[in-house]
C-alpha cells in the first residue's frame, strides 16, 4: 500500500529533510504533499486523501495545535494520524499535543531513526529495506 503523507512546516528546508528521511526509510510512498502552515494544510486535506500528517507547531497564520484541533473536530479528518515534529519541549505543550489527539511527538533536532521508528509504529514495518545511512565529514546522506 502506498501512503500519501502531508508535511506541514513553514521551513522549506525542514520539509525537504523530513521528506528525504521518510523516503530513505523504505516506506511505499504515494504522494508527498507539503503545506507551510495549518490553514494551507486544511485546504490540502480537504482536497486529497491523506494517510498521515507530520506537522510543526510554531507557524504563521495557523499553528500546528490549531490544525490538530480542527482535524480532530472534522469527521473526515479525525482518523488521520497526526505527528507533531517541533522544537517545543515544554511539558505543558507536549501534554497539550497528546491530549488533543496527536498520535506521536518528535522533538527537533531528530535523528532519521526517530522518524523511522515513529512511522513504523503508526504505519507498520516498511515494505522495503531502509537505505543505509552514512555519517561522516560530508554529513548524513539521507
Amino acid at each position, binding site marked *: 500500500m502506498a501512503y500519501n503523507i502531508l508535511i506541514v512546516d*513553514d*521551513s*522549506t*528546508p*525542514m520539509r*525537504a*529533510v523530513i521528506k*528525504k528521511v521518510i523516503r530513505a526509510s523504505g516506506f511505499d510512498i504515494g504522494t508527498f504533499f507539503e503545506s507551510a502552515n495549518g490553514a494551507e494544510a486544511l485546504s490540502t486535506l480537504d482536497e486529497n486523501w491523506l494517510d498521515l500528517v507530520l506537522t510543526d507547531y*510554531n*507557524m*504563521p497564520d495557523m499553528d500546528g495545535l490549531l490544525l490538530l484541533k480542527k482535524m480532530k473536530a472534522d469527521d473526515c479528518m479525525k482518523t488521520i494520524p497526526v505527528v507533531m515534529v*517541533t*522544537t*517545543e*519541549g*515544554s*511539558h*505543558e*505543550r507536549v501534554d497539550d499535543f497528546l491530549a488533543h489527539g496527536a498520535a506521536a511527538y518528535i522533538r*527537533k*533536532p*531528530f*535523528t532519521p531513526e526517530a522518524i523511522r521508528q515513529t512511522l513504523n509504529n503508526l504505519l507498520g514495518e516498511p515494505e522495503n529495506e531502509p537505505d543505509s545511512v552514512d*555519517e561522516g565529514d*560530508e*554529513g*548524513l*546522506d*539521507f
Partner: protein
Amino acid sequence: MNPILLTKAMKASISEVLETMFFMVIDVVSESEKKESVPDSSHAIGVVLDFGGPACGCFRLMVPSILAHESTADFLGIDIDALARDDVCGTLMEMVNMLAGNTLSHYDADLVFDLSVPRMIDEEAGDRSPSGQAGYCSLDIQTLANRMSLVVNYEDKV
C-alpha cells in the same frame, strides 16, 4: 532568567542541534573563555528569533557566509554549488528555531515560552542588537574552520 542556567542550556542545545542535524564538530566557547580571537563578523549572515512568556527577549545567531553555505549543504544533502539564497536563509532560520526551542526547554521544561517566526537580520535597516534589555548570554561556537556566535538577550517579566 538565571544566566548560569541559561548558558548551560545554550551549550546543551548547541551540541544537540548542530551535531545531530548539521553534522558539525564543534567546541563551545563561553564569554569567560574567549581570548583575543573574536569571530569575524564581516561576511556573516544573521538571523533572529524573538520569544515571550515568563521572560522575553531574542536569540541572535551570526554565521560566517562560508559556514552558512556548508551547513546548508550538509543539512539538505545537496552540493554547495547548487544552493539558492533561499536554501541558506531557510536553513539558518530553522537552525535558530531549533537552538531557541531547545535552549528554553533545557532551561526549564515546566515553563511555556512563545517563539516568533525567525527572520533575517538586516543591520542596514537598523536591525541591531537590542540595548535596553536586562541581561544577555553570549557563546561562540568554534567549528573546524570557522566561528559563529549565539547571543540571547532577555528581560524577566515582573
